[in-house]
């Protein structure tokens, strides 16, 4: 935007902009504030009209009660285990595949790559039923494997890393090859260290997607020990219909890690989204 002289900068229009955008931001944040404040209220303060924003006393023990009402600790470990495994797995499989697409010559490379990109267009619902049945046939339903293994490869991730690898100059690698390095060494010792921003973007996107996933966990697990935070919270909702203090404590629990990750790694989230917008 062109820069304005200071006097015009405080015009009525700018004032209007400020009011509009801050009001909208506040409205967007209101549910979060409401969630956090409700989670530390006494039930007596929850069922009052008009609603009271601030609790008279902060009842942090609500979190303890929520964790006692349902094994959220266990749910948490499950979610972390699944999300971390899938993320690490994708980092490995995607960088390997991306290396092949970006650096190696082989027959049918372009066709295979296009086919890969094409799979991003397929809605998950189309592959969901047969994937469920495959897992059923090999006896993996209701296991961690069912939650992790189908997510171990990603067309989006392969694409994202391939695009990044292509921007790395080849001179470094050529020198390494002359020194007798294998392709593996080149990938792990030269390309990977140079690709940290792309790997961070992929990690954050994958972690967020898996941690927040609900439908797949709902379909392939049934025992309580395998429940993820999201599934646990959805079932909690059915059981404690009006215990809003516990429900909000559970919601804070389910959103906090992602919000923290986001706070520290905002630029990678933004990068991932803009990249997804460029893929067309």
């Amino acid at each position, binding site marked *: 935007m062109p820069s304005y002289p200071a006097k015009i900068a405080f015009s009525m229009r700018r004032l209007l902009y400020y009011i509009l955008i801050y009001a909208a931001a506040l409205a967007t944040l209101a549910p979060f504030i409401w969630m956090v404040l409700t989670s530390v209220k006494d039930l007596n303060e929850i069922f009052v009209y008009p609603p009271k924003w601030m609790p008279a006393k902060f009842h942090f023990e609500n979190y303890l009660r929520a964790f006692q009402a349902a094994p959220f600790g266990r749910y948490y470990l499950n979610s972390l285990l699944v999300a971390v495994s899938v993320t690490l797995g994708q980092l490995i499989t995607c960088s390997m595949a991306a290396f092949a697409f970006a650096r190696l010559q082989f027959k049918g490379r372009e066709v295979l790559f296009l086919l890969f990109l094409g799979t991003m267009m397929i*809605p998950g619902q189309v592959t969901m039923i047969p994937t469920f049945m495959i897992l059923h046939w090999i006896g993996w339903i209701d296991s961690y494997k069912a939650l992790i293994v189908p997510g171990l490869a990603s067309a989006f991730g392969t694409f994202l890393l391939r695009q990044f690898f292509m921007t790395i100059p080849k001179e470094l690698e050529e020198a390494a090859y002359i020194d007798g390095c294998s392709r593996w060494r080149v990938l792990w010792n030269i390309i990977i260290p140079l690709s940290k921003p792309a790997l961070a973007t992929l990690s954050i996107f994958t972690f967020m997607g898996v941690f*927040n996933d609900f439908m797949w966990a709902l379909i392939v697990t049934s025992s309580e020990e395998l429940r993820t935070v999201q599934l646990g919270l959805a079932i909690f909702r059915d059981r404690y219909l009006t215990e809003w203090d516990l429900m909000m404590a559970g919601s804070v629990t389910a*959103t906090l890690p992602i919000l923290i990750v986001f706070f520290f790694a905002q630029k990678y989230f933004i990068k991932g989204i803009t990249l997804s917008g460029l893929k067309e």
Partner: protein
Amino acid sequence: MAPSRTYTASARKKEGLSALLFLSPTLVIFSTFVLFPVLFSFYLSFHQWNMFSAQQAFVGLANYTRMFRDPEFWSVLKNTLIYTVGTVPLNMALSLLVAYLLNQKLAGKKFLRTAFFAPVIISPVAAAVIWRWMYDPNFGLVNYFLTLVGIKGPNWLNEPHSAMFALILMAVWKTLGFNMVLFSAGLQGIPDTYYEAAEIDGAGAWTKFWRITIPLLSPTTFFIMVMSIIGSFQAFDVVYVLTSGGPMGATKVLVFYLYEQAFKFFEMGYASAVAYFLFLLLIVLTLLQIRLMKSKI
């Protein structure tokens, strides 16, 4: 790549082989959990199968004709359309507005961007749980704010019309930040010189917005529209937790119906037909939009 000067047939073969090795984990996972399922669900859509019997009975197009005869199918399709028409334009208009305002010189941009983006990153389940509380008819914030302006709010999630509206409002809140980021990137791609030239010609903010921003932003707008429509046809999580498809099926959308058919009634063949219908519908809608876009240029 190996040094090209010493490139022989055997080296090429070796390179192909190592490419295969590098690709193998991805290829194994993909053929098992994407390629085979895509083909198999197409096959299944012409069969009747409850998953537990050994045999899949070929029924031809019966699953597809059954779909078109099922009044519930039409009702969920209608709900999905209402949801899409309700969310996509509203979301796009608001996210463009927010992105436009954020593209101006403002104090506290980082805070603002974080605020608008926060709903995007939290789980749909948690978001829906929070909004159930927001929509509580007696103690919820939504109705409280409505009474402040003199409106008596409905029992949001228990009345068919208001439940769909509640779902739409929440969906817009949840995805606005995502489109805002895309619009922001698009806005930053418009060179300042265009605006400066327009100012010299005496154009105001309004003219600049309609004559420069909107036309130059159209590739971004198009992309967002296509992606938003695809996304809204696939809504499930928020519906499951916010309304469970109720009241009286008023918010039951296509994927919710598919889920019920497959994992409640185990009608795997029929559910596959529904999945393929969704797939085809999305392809047709996307192609239509591309046509429309091209005819406009």
